């Protein structure tokens, strides 16, 4: 089984659109073209064996992403900019 990623047009990144079954990479690519781009939805296709994808666990979502949650200072809105100062 393969996961399919399509770049819609130049300037965009590949997006996951779904999966399909195929015996090898070449057939997977052709099948991906036939299944997912019948209306010119893509200029570039990546196919990845589903087994090659390592996913973060939904159960551990909170502790896994926790370190980022209390660091508001990573966001520009955290900082006060004096009035009249531009390009900051």
């Amino acid at each position: 089984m393969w996961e399919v990623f399509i770049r819609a047009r130049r300037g965009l990144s590949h997006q996951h659109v779904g999966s399909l079954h195929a015996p090898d990479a070449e057939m997977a690519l052709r099948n991906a073209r036939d299944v997912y781009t019948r209306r010119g939805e893509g200029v570039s296709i990546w196919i990845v064996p589903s087994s090659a994808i390592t996913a973060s666990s939904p159960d551990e979502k909170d502790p896994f992403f926790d370190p980022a949650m209390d660091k508001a200072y990573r966001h520009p809105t955290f900082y006060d900019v004096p009035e009249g100062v531009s390009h900051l």
Partner: protein
Amino acid sequence: MYGNVDGIESSDEGALPAGVEAALQELFDQLIADDQRIEPRDWMPDGYRKTLIRQIAQHAHSEIIGMQPEGNWITRAPSLRRKAILLAKVQDEAGHGLYLYSAAETLGVDREDLLDLLHSGKQKYSSIFNYPTLSWADMGAIGWLVDGAAIMNQVPLCRCSYGPYGRAMVRICKEESFHQRQGFEILFTLSHGTPAQHAMAQDAVNRFWWPALMMFGPPDTDSPNSEQSTAWGIKRFSNDELRQRFVDMCVSQAEALGLTLPDPDLQWNSERQHHDFGAIDWAELTRVIKGDGPCNAQRMARRVSAHEDGRWVREAAQAYAAKHRAGKVPAGAAA
């Protein structure tokens, strides 16, 4: 809408401690209450998983079986343009089936097993596809009424609580609208053609109108799964509500087509602000779902033989891939 037959058993998961499961259930309930999406590998109640597997699989089966009544007329399309368009439509149906099998597989089932369930009759497909296509005008009636009814049902499903199913529906709805227009155009052309063409179009509509209304499923009072599906955010509107919307939509479209709908009781009710329509023969729907429709046997036989006859192609592709993986053939050489 796609039948009440139970699907496959979900795989046995190790039993969780009671406290943990209750907490997960609460999280799940909160996500549903907040109209958020459930994604693959999220914890979900067993019943939710099972019902989605059954619904998505039967939806996928419907797309694949649905290729047959229209595939029937590809070789007899009246013009090259119509043939190319019909080919594209049938191709789309195959594609829709594939999107849906992919969505079902995110729930932990294998499409091989789903196909086995279809072929053995343990999972169903939409009853509308058990009717024959007797003339070219049926292509118009199917596009206008059957795809029209499908769109009416599928647009709300774009907001289904299960992420992959909702996203597949967004793709499908985008493609489905050409199907409906294609059907409308066929009927419009025939209706405004010769008297014989007009009669052919009217006959097709007469045969497909009531089966199209049945596509929305049994009346709400007779639909035991609806309550739970609604509570889980899978079903957004009731069968009767969608059916009523469909009738209202078709009345003005039928006028534009210059065709009548075969229902003497169809009339505008200014109190309800909807069209009243005649009684549906639910016994017919039950019969057809149970396997006693005009084409049930033919559809299944065709489907099974296509699968069996195509086995050598799948095996050849696998053998070719295996041969190349093992490095037995130099790159670029013929197999």
